């Protein structure tokens, strides 16, 4: 397999994907469910995400020469592989619809007042599809290019907000019950699962014998920034967070700098639009990969293009006919149980795969031992395990 993505690029994509869907309407939606304790709901989601990240990273290291689909077929068989890919497809499909209509909602209020949905969808889908059509190496390098800009802007924004914004004491916490907090995490689980994209990059990552601590730090820092963002949002709008659906651009309005420099929420809007483009590209890459490998017919020549056409067609149908308003989308995704159940199942896919591959490896080792015993081979040496058998029969 041609390895085109470095671990650094992977961690940068992870850093960027952490912000997906979280910086606009979500704080107000979280708040409506469980008030200030929504911070803990977010915290649990982040912890799940991080656990998932480490499991997936281990899976990637163990299977450096296999494509994800190949890996699934080897470990689980073709049918289960396709089911898993289908689940991931639906998961990312909901994400991209959320991104399109949520992003349109944000952009319409922030800058695009009278622009139709078609304009926003056209731009977002064009850039997302373009990022998919270029190689994944190109997407990884593009993320790497924009990473310093995003990092510096987010960090400066957080530092300025933390030290200058009029923040209130968030205490007391735990005014809601634990079940309420977990319920919120569960209902909003679709916004996490940010590291599942790594599965689709299996076999294309150049793992070298270097320390990865600095790369893990990027992921942790990204999660920390998201948590800090919510903390700042609730500190500034302690009792009115539900009335601020444009979180990031509204926070900027409340910074004392606006009195000096003037309105500079165009910076926040530009940052969000940049993030939308990159997230859209990532989602389309995952969707395209899933659909390509679900499509059975070998006669189809250009599966990539066909899958993109199908995906875009489905997206347009959903945003125009199934969920024409963002409210309908919101009701379906966050207030009903279908989507949280799906995302919970999807969350456990990496763990399931890890366990399966662990069991299969154990079985394979046993079989190898039995085979070698049958052949009468002595000194069965398992690499790095220190197990040593001698012929005694």
């Amino acid at each position, binding site marked *: 397999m041609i390895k085109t993505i470095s671990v650094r690029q992977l961690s940068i994509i992870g850093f960027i994907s952490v912000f997906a869907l979280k910086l606009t309407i979500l704080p107000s939606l979280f708040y409506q469910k469980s008030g200030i304790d929504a911070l803990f709901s977010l915290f649990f989601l982040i912890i799940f995400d991080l656990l998932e990240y480490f499991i997936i990273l281990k899976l990637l290291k163990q299977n450096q020469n296999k494509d994800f689909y190949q890996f699934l077929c080897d470990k689980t068989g073709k049918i289960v592989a396709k089911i898993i890919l289908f689940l991931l497809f639906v998961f990312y499909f909901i994400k991209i619809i959320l991104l399109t209509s949520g992003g349109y909602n944000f952009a319409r209020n922030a800058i*695009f*007042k009278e622009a139709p949905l078609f304009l926003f969808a056209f*731009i977002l889908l064009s850039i997302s599809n373009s990022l998919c059509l*270029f190689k994944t190496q190109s997407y990884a390098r593009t993320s790497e290019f*924009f990473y310093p800009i995003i990092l510096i802007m987010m960090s400066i924004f957080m530092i300025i907000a933390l030290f200058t914004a009029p923040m209130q004491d968030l205490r007391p916490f735990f005014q809601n019950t634990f079940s309420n907090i977990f319920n919120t995490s569960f209902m909003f689980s679709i916004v996490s699962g940010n590291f599942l994209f790594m599965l689709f990059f299996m076999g294309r990552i150049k793992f070298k014998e270097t320390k990865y601590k600095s790369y893990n730090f990027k992921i942790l820092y990204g999660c920390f920034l998201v948590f800090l963002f919510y903390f700042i949002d609730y500190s500034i709008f302690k009792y009115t967070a539900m009335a601020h659906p444009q979180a990031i651009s509204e926070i900027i309005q409340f910074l004392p700098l606006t009195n000096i420099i003037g309105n500079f929420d165009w910076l926040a809007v530009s940052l969000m639009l940049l993030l939308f483009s990159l997230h859209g590209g990532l989602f389309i890459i995952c969707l395209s990969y899933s659909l390509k490998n679900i499509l059975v017919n070998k006669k189809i020549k250009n599966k990539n293009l066909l899958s993109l056409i199908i995906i875009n067609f489905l997206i347009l149908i959903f945003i125009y006919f199934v969920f024409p308003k963002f409210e309908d989308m919101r009701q379906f995704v966050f207030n009903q149980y279908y989507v949280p159940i799906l995302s919970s199942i999807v969350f456990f896919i990496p763990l399931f795969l890890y366990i399966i591959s662990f069991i299969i490896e154990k079985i394979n080792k046993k079989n190898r031992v039995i085979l070698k015993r049958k052949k009468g081979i002595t000194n069965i040496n398992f690499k790095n395990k220190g197990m040593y058998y001698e012929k005694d029969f």
Partner: protein
Amino acid sequence: MIFRASKDLKAKMNDSEDVVIKEICCSNKEFNLIFVKTMIDEKSLTYAVIGPIIDYFSKKNNSVNEDFNINKIKNEVLKTLDVKLITKKESLNELSSNKVLLIIKGEKKILSIDIIKYPIRTPTEPPTSAVVKGPREGFVEDMNTNISLIRKRFNSQELTVKQMSIGKRSQTKISIVYLNQIVSINLVKRIEKKLKKINIDGVIDSYYLIPFLQNNPSSMFKQVGNCEKPDIISAKLLEGRVAIIVDNSPIVLTLPFMFIEDLQNSNDYYSLSQYATYIRVIRILGLLFSVIIPGTYISFRLYHYNIVPINFLVTIANSTASIPLTPFLEVIFILILFEILYEVSLRLPRYLGLATSIVGALVLGDTGVKAGLISPPGVMVIALSTIAVYTIPDQVDQINLLRATFIVLGSALGLFGIIAGFVFVIAYLNSLENYGVGYLAPFSPKISSDLKDGVIKSNIIYMKERPKSIKNKNKTRMKYDKDN
């Protein structure tokens, strides 16, 4: 007597008037010299070829009775450097390559003598790469002179020159120059392979080769480096690049190419590194201004007035209150005016150019605004963007095209269109296959050690290793111990 072979050769050269056949007869030996009069050094012909032949045979007549041997003429008689024996089949090629052919009666082989001389410009400072400090030599149209300008900077055995001819009718000489101990041989082989595949009528200038060397020939982005200065080429060779010199062209091509090369200027290496860093930042800002500002200006006026700070909004609203043109048309109009002015200033002679620039400035800057056709902010934006284009002169074409694209994107799709366009351009640049080198290296992929000569220009004592973006054999450039 003029030999038949000589007549045939002249006939094959279409009986050109400047193809001359000179008969020499001495000691019953007959010779024919056939050459292109306009392309040889007549003095060398007289004193290094004809003179020695006549002298030799007149001596022979007097004293020495030796067997005649064409090799002896080649080795002992002729006083020129480059002489070789060729067959009749090769004679036409040699003659069309402006060599002097010496046909000896009764001999099957022919002597080909290289005493080419044609008008060569003296190396002067190229107009596109002026420096305040540093060498002012520039390449000329003669390949040998160009090679010598590079070779004099490498007094070692490592500089390798490989030559070939491209062009069915022009047979233009091409040299591939590289440092043997540094460059990756795969790169050289790849380039050679591409050049050998070229099947073209003629190569007039090095730019003819560019589409053949690019992996994405239809892309508007530059994928082959070019330069007119030998010091820059030498520096690039030291980094592991390959230079391609084309005869009759002062522009030398380099491969592989990275975008960062056009951000760098030779001035940066001959001045303070901190100042060089400062200037590079200005260049990047200039690039961003030139490409993005006009489109952003239109999009803010058309769609996003609400995010413009009030002070700017008042000025723009006041200035554009009575303009008859819509924002898009106004910007296009000013842009076209600027482009016309630019084209005119390029083509006109110097004395007329001055008058045109005054008229242009008055028309655009003053009268147009006073007449209410265009607004001062519009003029300001386009003027700033046009000036900023020239912060990176090697990418003027690309920047102009990008600017027009972003104007369309900003007008049609607003701020999101501009951001999406920017992301697209970056993604596209990252997808360009460039002889195994990232186009936007060392930014993406990030190569920390190469960033010492990226936007920030470090002091030369810290640049101990060759750029890792380009595959090369020998990484160490310098060994420097601060304390000693």
